[in-house]
């Protein structure tokens, strides 16, 4: 796959103020996404996936969070620049949230919410916008578009709401779609439909997808490449095939072993991490404390990504030794 890179993140750092100090939720993440590929991002809850996703469209976490460093560019546009970001966000980049129920304005009709997006980005007549809204609704597989158009979110089921979200996200025919774990709230059958929908869209529109999930199943069905995130850093990234077949990083192994993703509880809480941070001074492997194969050197110094070839990289000393 040699499409051009349309989206790149370099050494992105996002901090959140906790109590007195700040702690990095996303810490030195670097990623790139090629035209019409699908990159999956897995990791436990609290790993900072959603924060990363929001940062990718230039939105710092609320409240009192800030994007502390790094570069995020989409077609050369600086996504950390409010104005440049707004020009493309919602237009060329569609974003879908995890919880559809909470992500729709309860006081506006579905139709209105689709239209306002279109009108906000395109110089278009209301009538035309309405036409497209109806198309979109049927495109995302909603049975009776006209009635859905005038319906309010609370009248929809979870699946329907998420479809509506898709309709909104796709309303300006984006080339890049960011999904923040959009299917987690839905039951398996709906999930399947949604995924089918995405794949279908990718084929038809050559859509580029960045898909956050905590389910390798989804990754397998949807993505070309997958990145594994832990405590704000990318520990491993590579072609889905490679990563799933021979995971290198102990953490990836553990994730795969516990097919599916451990629940949030097992993930270190912010506070705990604040502690951990102060403990190892933010150097070395974050996973060290839980790593079965931990070595003294793990927490000694920052660990670089080591390339295993074919775009399969990991952030672990075991590997860097081997090579």
């Amino acid at each position: 796959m040699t499409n051009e890179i349309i989206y790149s993140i370099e050494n992105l750092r996002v901090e959140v103020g906790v109590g007195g100090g700040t702690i990095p939720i996303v810490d030195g993440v670097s990623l790139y996404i090629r035209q019409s590929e699908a990159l999956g991002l897995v990791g436990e809850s609290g790993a900072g996936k959603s924060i990363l996703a929001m940062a990718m469209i230039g939105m710092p976490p609320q409240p009192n969070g800030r994007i502390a460093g790094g570069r995020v560019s989409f077609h050369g546009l600086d996504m950390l620049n409010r104005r440049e970001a707004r020009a493309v966000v919602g237009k060329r980049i569609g974003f879908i949230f995890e919880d559809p129920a909470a992500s729709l304005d309860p006081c506006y009709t579905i139709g209105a919410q689709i239209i306002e997006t279109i009108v906000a980005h395109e110089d278009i007549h209301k009538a035309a916008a309405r036409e497209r809204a109806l198309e979109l609704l049927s495109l995302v597989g909603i049975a009776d578009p006209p009635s859905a158009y005038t319906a309010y979110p609370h009248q929809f089921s979870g699946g329907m709401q998420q479809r509506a979200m898709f309709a909104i996200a796709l309303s300006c025919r984006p080339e890049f779609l960011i999904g923040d774990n959009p299917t987690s709230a839905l039951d398996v059958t709906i999930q399947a439909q949604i995924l089918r929908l995405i794949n279908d869209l990718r084929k038809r529109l050559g859509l580029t997808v960045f898909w956050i999930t905590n389910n390798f199943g989804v990754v397998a069905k949807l993505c070309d490449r997958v990145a594994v995130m832990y405590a704000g850093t990318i520990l491993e990234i590579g072609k889905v095939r490679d990563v799933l077949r021979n995971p290198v990083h102990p953490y990836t192994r553990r994730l795969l072993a516990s097919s599916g993703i451990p629940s949030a509880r097992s993930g270190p809480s912010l506070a705990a991490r604040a502690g951990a941070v102060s403990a190892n001074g933010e150097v070395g492997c974050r996973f060290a404390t839980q790593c079965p194969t931990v070595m003294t050197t793990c927490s000694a110094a920052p660990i670089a990504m080591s390339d295993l070839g074919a775009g399969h990289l990991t952030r672990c000393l075991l590997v860097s030794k081997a090579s």
Partner: protein
Amino acid sequence: MARYLLRRAAYFLFILVGVSIVIFTTMRLVPGDPIVYLAGPFATAKQRAAIRESYGLDKPVVVQYGRWLAKAAQGDLGRSMQLHVPVTELLFGKLRNTLLLVAGSMFIAILVGWSLGILSGFRPNGLIDRIGLVVALAGISLPAFWFGMLLIIAFAINLPWFPANGIVSERGDGGVFDVLWHLFLPAVATAALPCGVMLRMTRTAVLEIRRMTFVRALAAKGLPGRALAVHVIWNALPNILNVTGMQAGFLLTAAIFSEVVFSWPGLGLQIYAAVTSQDYTVAQGAVLFICILFLLFNVVVDVLRPIFDPRIRMA
């Protein structure tokens, strides 16, 4: 909607009857005998009895209540025992003045409360927010009767800009501007509390909405800030309207303090006078008036909120 209104109406009836019973009995528990009073200083016991009879107050309370209710049902609240003026005529006059005062102060309260509340809701801990917090604290802490007095000292005595009392100037044309001129100080004094309350409520409402996911989702749609603000305010409106409606209803009688300080001939003053001077008919009528108004204010709020919140509308 029809069923809703029907239920509502039945409920009102229940409340009104209950209220009228309470007022009717309590009025008769107030120490002192209006008849003795009406009969004047020289009356003999026999003459008082005659007068009492002429007012039908010699009958048992239940009978009196029955008669009164029967009349009231036909919109006849009788004549004021003290003034002989038909109660409805008397009260409508007062009501007009009070509504004027309430309207005036609500206008100020909304102007300040909403704007400051919304702005500080959008910029918490900003300069406006700090100002707002002070204003709100002052608003809910200032005793209206004392605040009114300060306003008089400041803007009627030291700086004779506004009249200290009354609703129109005696020689003035009594035109709109004359009234507004008289209205200003009392309105400000009355506005303090609702302003403070609404400011805080509005701020809270906006803050709570802004924390919601859908606002981020809207931002992620790349909507411009103005559009976002509209969404937020629209979502906050039901709560804002709610507290606004309550405050307006509250002022109907809370205005009494300003009415006293500025000798503004309003309903609160009338009720106070009627209760203390035991003008049964007026007191009963007035309380009925107030309660009906209160219920109406609620209906207005109940009717307005669904307009902004489909979830209620369709529930």
